Structures are given as C-alpha cells and as structure tokens.
C-alpha cells in the first residue's frame, strides 16, 4: 500500500531523514518509535505534504501513485490521512461543517454526489457517540477551547468518518490521561480491518499496550535502524534507545 524508499528530507538545510525505507501493507499496523528529534513526525508530515520540507532524494508510493507529485488535498482524498499531534484551532468554523466539507470533497473525488443531510447526521451522531463526544462538540468551532484530550478524540472522529486507507497518527497519545487514551485507542482499534493500514508515531510504549502493532520500527537519526514485532516495543520500554543505536553502529 505504502512504499517509502531511500527517503532523504531536509528542513531549512538541516538534514532530518537520511535514507528511510518503509513498506506498509493493507491490514497492518505499524508503529514508529524513537528518541526525540529522530525525525518521527517529519516522516508523517512529509507523507501528508506539509510545506517546508524538502525531499532531496527517494520516493513515496501509495497504491502505486507517486505521492510527492500530489497536492495535499489529493493525498487526503486518495485515503492518506494524518491525525495531528497538535490539532489547530479554526475560530468560527463549526466542527460539523469541516467534517461535512471534508467528506464531500472526498466523495466528489470519487465521483459521488454530496452526502444527504439525514445520512450525514446519523453517521456523525453514531461516530461521535463511539468517541464519547457530546453532540455539542459538533456545533463548536474546530478545536477552539478543546482540551488536549478532546482535540485528540476529535482527530479520531474525523478518521472514523473519513475512513482513510492509511491512517497516520502522530503522537496521538501525547497529553492524554489513561481514560482518554482508552477512548482514543478503542477508536483506532475500530478502524482496523483487512483493507486498512495504520501508522502510529509514538514516543512511548504505553499506547502500544492498547493498540497492538504488527510491526515496530525504531527510527534513530533519520533512519530506521531496527524493525521487529510488538515485543520490540516492550524491549525498548525496558532498555531505552541507546542499545539499538549502538547495535546499529556496530
């Protein structure tokens, strides 16, 4: 589904990714772990198309399409969706309005008409109940005055409604208490199916107790230096990152 090959990325002349390779197949959950500053968030941001990153080498293919040639919105409509670590506030724009515009943009790209209002309302109510969000959230401005946990739940709500093929979740666990983490994890787990892949970017192992990954990758200094199964995450929890680095240098 997603194939990242030899990816080199710089931000303002600073080299962040130095030849990253990653293959994700449908139905898989991948976790990218690593110390701060290793380039974890850069990877998902580049895949989503954020400005300010320069790809100096390498390719990203999504279902055979060259992602780097696509506009930001085209990537999203194709099913590549990024859940933000710090979702931005958009004053005056209702949450429900953003959801509807996003869903209809996606439908239009597929050649479908706009979703009928009753169908949309039913969908939104159902999914926000799953995320334990009060319906009043839908009428509030996007992320404005939301607590950290509410913002993260809102990100997952968008995923549940937009049903991406590849959901990329950047530090979705940061700033969450244990109850909110559980709700978010349940939401993510409900996204899991044979046709969909999930890419989790996280600093801590604790999220992976709730969302159990098929593959764990350790990203250090711009490269994936070690890959393994879910037990790798536990080992990292015990031993930290230094040993991986030493092993990779040796």
């Amino acid at each position: 589904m997603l194939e990242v090959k030899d990816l080199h990325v710089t931000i303002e002349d600073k080299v962040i990714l130095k030849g990253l390779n990653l293959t994700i197949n449908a139905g898989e959950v991948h976790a990218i772990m690593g110390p701060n500053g290793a380039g974890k968030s850069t990877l998902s941001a580049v895949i989503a198309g954020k400005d300010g990153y320069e790809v100096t080498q390498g390719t990203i293919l999504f279902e055979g399409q060259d992602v780097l040639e696509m506009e930001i919105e085209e990537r999203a409509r194709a099913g590549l969706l990024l859940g933000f670590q710090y979702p931005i506030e958009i004053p005056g724009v209702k949450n429900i309005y953003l959801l509807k515009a996003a869903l209809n943009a996606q439908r239009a790209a597929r050649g479908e008409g706009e979703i009928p209002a009753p169908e949309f309302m039913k969908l939104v109510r159902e999914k926000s109940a799953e995320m334990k969000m009060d319906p009043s959230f839908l009428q509030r401005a996007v992320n404005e005055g939301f607590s950290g946990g509410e913002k993260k739940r809102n990100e997952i709500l968008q995923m549940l409604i937009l049903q991406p093929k590849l959901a990329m979740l950047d530090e979705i666990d940061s700033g969450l208490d244990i109850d909110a983490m559980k709700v978010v994890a349940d939401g993510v787990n409900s996204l899991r199916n044979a046709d969909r892949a999930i890419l989790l970017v996280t600093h801590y192992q604790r999220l992976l107790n709730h969302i159990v990954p098929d593959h764990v990758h350790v990203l250090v200094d711009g490269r994936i230096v070690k890959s393994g199964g879910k037990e790798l995450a536990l080992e990292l929890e015990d031993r930290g990152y230094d040993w991986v680095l030493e092993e990779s240098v040796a």
Partner: protein
Amino acid sequence: MASEEMEQLVRREYKQGFVTDIESDTVPPGLDESTIAFISQKKGEPEWMLEWRLEAYHQWLKMTPPSWAHLEYPPIDYQAISYFSAPKKPEDRPQSLDEVDPKLLETYEKLGIPLHERAALAGVAVDAVFDSVSVTTTFKEKLHEAGVIFCSISEAIREYPELVRQYLGTVVPQADNYFAALNSAVFTDGSFVYVPEGVKCPMELSTYFRINAANTGQFERTLVICDKRAQVSYLEGCTAPQRDENQLHAAVVELVALEDAYIKYSTVQNWYPGDEDGKGGIYNFVTKRGDCRGDRSRISWTQVETGSAITWKYPSCMLRGKESVGEFYSVAVTNGRQQADTGTKMIHIGENTRSTIVAKGIAAGRSDQAYRGLVKIGPRAKGARNYTQCDSLLIGDQCGAHTFPYQEIGNSTATVEHEATTSKIADDQLFYCRARGIGEEDAVSMIVNGFCKDVFQELPMEFAVEAEALLNVTLEGSVG
C-alpha cells in the same frame, strides 16, 4: 464669513440668474453655482433647498480634501465630473444579456443573483434601471398603511418639506468634511425614511444604489428618521459587482433615532474595484453618521465592504440620549490593488451610553487597509462603556493591515476595552483543512468566513448568505 454675509452673497449670485438650459437632461462636466441651480431646478426643489445647497458649495470651496487617511490616489479633478445625468435611453443600453461581458455574468452566476436582476445590474434596458433617479420603491402601499414614509429624497423634499428641513444636515452638517460639503451641494438622489412614533416598520427596507453612466459622480443622500419607540431595518447596497469607469462616489447618510427608537442599517458594498492594477475602480468617500438623540435609543451599523478601488468610510454614532447604544460591525475585504481606510467613531455624550465595535479586516493580493476608530467619552457621559475588537487577517505577504485606534476619555467613570489582533492566514490552518481533503480555495473561504462570523450573524438572514458567497468570489485566486 458670517452667515448673514454668506446669505447675501448667495442671494446676489442667485439673482444674477442661471443660464443652464433646463431642457437638457445632462449637464456638461464642471461645477459652479449654475450646475447646482440646474440640479435643484431639475428636481423641482423649493428655494430653501437651493440656498442650502449653495451654502454648502461655498463652504466646500474653502475646504481642502483630507490627507490624513492611509490612502494613495491622484488628485481628483472636480471640474471633470458631470454632476447630473438623467437615465440613459433604452436604445443606448445593451439590449440583452448576450451583449454583456461574460465574465460579469459568470460572477452573477456564482453569487446566485436571480436572472431578472442580472439584466438590471448589467445595465440591460429593462424598466427598473435608472441612473441618478431612485428605483421605484415597491411595497409602498403596505408601508403607507403603517404610516412609514419611504421615498426618494427628492420626493421627500417636495412632499414632506417640513420633515426634511427639520432633520437634513442636523447629523452631518453641510461643512462637516470635504466630501460631505460636496455632497450637500450637489446630491442628486437617495432615500428618505420616516417611521412614526411607536411603529415597527413592517418590512426590511432596501435600496440598490447603482452607478451606470460613465464619468458621472454619484452623490447619494440618505436620511432615516425613527421617531419615539419606532424601529426600522434598512439594507443598502447589493452583493453583485457594479461596474463603472473611475467614478467618485461621495454619499452622505444621516440617521436620527429619537427616544427608545432602534435603527439597524446594513450595507453590502461591492463597487467595481478596478482591474488588477487598480485602474478604473470606484472611489468611495462616504460620510455616515447616526444620532442617538433620544434616551435609550439604539443605532446599529453593519457593513460588508468588498468593492471600490478606494474606500474612505467611518459610520459613526453620536450617543446623546441617556443609555443610548451604538454598534458597529464591519467586515472589510481588500484584494488586488484595493485600498481601504475605514472604521467608526463612537461619541459618548449622554450618561450610561454604551458602544460596541467589532471590525474584521481581510487583506489579500497587494491591497492595503486600515482600521481607524475613535472612541470619545465626554465629561458628562458618566458610566459610559465601550468594547472594541478589531482583527485583521492577511492572506499572502504583499498586503498590509494597519490599526489606528484613538481614544479620548473625558471622565473617570468610563470603561473602555480594546482588543486587536493581526494574523496571517495561518499556514497551519490551511494545511489542516487540506490534509482533510478540502481544496485550497475552499479552505481559505472556510477560514475567512469563520473569521467574519461575528459580523455576518448581525446581518439580516438573506444578506448574510449573500455576503458569504460574495466573500468567496472576492477572494478567488488570492492564494496559490
């Protein structure tokens, strides 16, 4: 010059007679007493009106155009403007929409302007279009039953001279400013509204001001009077772009609210802004002022300004009556080479008067805009309160926004709050929306409409919907 001397002078010159041929439908470009007399005679005005105009003219001659605004434009040649023109003859107009600029029609389409109105706006020969003469006001009957007078100012001068004489120029005096003086001398038409004591006007009053003939200055004069406990909502303008060649527009609007009266005045202004280089756009120099004359009266200005090459406009409130309330809600959008210097004045005179200012400025392209607001609290305005919020949003990096707040606080019991923000349309907001699959232009209009929401919700419903559509069309192509 003392007013007595002035009057003599006026009379003497008047006696010399005016030579302009009144059979003609237009006057040649230029301005002198004979032009004014021509206009006055054409309108069938009483003598006091002519004298009033001439007084204004003589004041104007002694004044100089204001230069304090944050605007740049070449000096205007007032002698090159024609000050009166009758409606164009139908045969001189486009005969059907097929003859109209397709781009203009496309814009009407996007704005959802009804078909029959498109023709009128594009200047096609249909009955309802006039130049310098008010569009015939419909619903007159219904208003008549309620006792509301809604007619052209010319008609009011003829039919209700006492009312006009009592109020005209009492809010914006003849020599208030350069453009107001010019307007007082040469105004050709505009609207007059009188809502009698205790009457709530049964419908929203609207009028479309249009400029059609080339090189004709437009000098509208509007006077709205709300008697005790009366209420009216007045809509001015039109969301459709109105084309014209380099025209000066210097309107004056006067509002008078007596005890417990409420006037809501909403404007959507979309004059032709000129081409990409700003050529050919309308110069809009407007004086709008409301007088909360009675206790507990309330005047509310709501405006959406998107057009004009140059906008110079400060709808204001004189809060004289005790506990009177003044409000100003504004969205100003500039794109291309547009310049706008706009804002408001809230003059607190009476006790416990209150005012609210919410101004939203959006600058895109290479445009430049300024918010200029004065809050003045007089020594007798005990307990007066003002809340001001002005926010600017920049789209791109070639535009500018400036805020000039002025405060004059004359007593210690007043409460004045001011909040101001300037933000660039956040790349992060744009990225967030686009990363959800929303196209760039849709994302911009979503963010901008969200930014303007506080003001749009003050507009009458159908105007609010039109205003949103207008904003989207105005900002088209401003990103990417």
